[in-house]
């Protein structure tokens, strides 16, 4: 199973977070929202022109910038 970044995943697709690249700041922020490796997420939407991505895990929806979404890798179902 290959993983792709949250930024490039299609809207409506689900998968499991494999890894979060990048600094401690972004990992801490995502983890505080419950988004960490091993957690199942669904990409709700992406915006045109590399706008923010909305991702859902459980009952929580979070909007994150495209740059950050590029650093979150998902094993898509």
């Amino acid at each position: 199973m290959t993983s792709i970044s949250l930024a490039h995943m299609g809207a409506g697709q689900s998968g499991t977070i494999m890894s979060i690249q990048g600094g401690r700041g972004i990992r801490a922020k995502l983890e505080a929202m419950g988004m960490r490796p091993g957690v199942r997420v669904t990409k709700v939407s992406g915006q045109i022109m590399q706008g923010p991505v909305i991702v859902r895990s459980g009952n929580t929806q979070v909007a994150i910038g495209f740059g950050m979404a590029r650093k979150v890798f998902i094993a898509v179902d």
Partner: protein
Amino acid sequence: MLVKKILLVGNPNVGKSVVFSRLTGVDVIASNYPGTTVEFCKGCVGSGKDKIDVVDVPGTYSLDPTSPAEKVAVEMLNKGIKEKASIVINVIDATNLERNLNLTLQLLKRKVPLIIALNLWDEAKHIGISIDVEELQKILGIPIIPTVAITGEGVKSLVSRLSEAKISDYEYENTERWHNIGDIIEKVQVIKHKHHTFAERLSDLTVHPWTGIPIAVIVLFIIFQVIRFIGEGIINYVLDPIFTRLWQPVMEALSGLLGKEGIIHNILIGHLIDGKIDFGQSFGILTTGLYVPFGAVLPYIIAFYLVLSFLEDSGYLPRLAVLLDKTMHIIGLHGMAIVPMFLACGCNVPGIMATRILESKRERFIAATLMSITIPCMAQTAMIFGLLGQYGPKGIFPVFITLFLVWLIGGILMRFIIRGESPEIFTEIPAYRFPYLIGSLKKVWMRIKWFLKEAIPFVLLGVLIVNILYTFRIIQALGYFAAPVMTKFLGLPLDAVGALLIGFLRKDLAVGMLAPLGLSMKQLIISSVVLTMYFPCVATFAVLFKELGILDVLKAGAIMIGSAFIVGSLLNLIL
């Protein structure tokens, strides 16, 4: 245990402020987006010796802060824990138990007496989540009370069990925290699988670009129409009749008693226009001084805050922020900056306070400066509409299109000039909620009260000062001084300098001062734009000063005066 102080701690947007209002009876603004509370609020419950201070701490996802706003929350918590006899009410969102327990477990480690308000209990049930409160209580070793703060359900038992708050003996390894949370969730929570609710479908539609953008355009159009409809309705059917049929005869009689002239007459009634009182132009304390805040501005304040409260409480704003994120990047901000911008359309003061939801100093400077230059408050907007409305769109549009262009160009320039970081958007998207009507209306009422308290004294003082300045011919003298700038560059009569002077006090009154001057449409457009841009009113200035510090305020002030002069002169050339 004797409790002296309660700290309300929890994730953003779980209803801490609503719990706070319920506990203390102190009204605070609560909305459905993360980061409504940017400043801590204090109140108390009980009285006399049993009085307990309650502190509404801004929301945080973790005790290991990742943003300046969270840092403030954690510092407040640390300070509170040090004081003896303080307890923490951890407000948690029952619909997001797992994520909320992350903060709870961190709180447990702080060894502070803790009690949990399991809020949004009704919503959790509604979407098919059931939580075994007894079991959770047993595992964590602290009292847990299910609440629906917005209706007050459970708040009484929360209060009666405050003394049961205790230090938990639950132990875990920090690195294993999520693992432990997983175990707890498995034991206490059951989620019934169910179909998409209407709110969820609507949520998806409003954030997908191809459906979301058209919906946003429609929503913004409706907002504008509804504000106009309500504002005009109140003026035409309520306030105009009151002023013309009831107040006018009283004032005419008083004017007669005072002999229709003289200094007292001028201060109370003002100058008669064609032998009659004109509420817009006479400029007495009892005529124009009352008409501006009550007759012209208040209806639009009511209309604006009704619509804003609905928007805030429904949960639409963060979604709009996502759709507009890219646009906001053009001016060096991210999508959530639309929240302070929206608030500023009502009044710049809460707008500037709300810039705290932005993380970096650079973003806050750009947002605060840009809004104080280009966003007229609702009071000023109402007066501009009143003055230029007679010309229709060709009078109104140039003002707002100019301000929008200045907003855009000023933002782009600041994005390139102001150094520092602008992080990307990172925000929770709350579930849609149908606004709780009583709560929303209360919020509107709080804001109207705030407007009246702020506006009335300043408007009355302003009218008094205007009369004094005219009586002693000070405005004429200043006009002579300012003549080169006023007439040569801006194309305005010398008298308009009076409006610029009073604009420091109240912008709505300043726009009102233009009415008796007999300006042309072009002059009215230029002066409306210049009055918006040149400097903030005293209330806005004070909060700018507090938020940005002296150095940045001086910078911002220079940008304002400079850009107002340039834009005013350009308009004079172009129009």
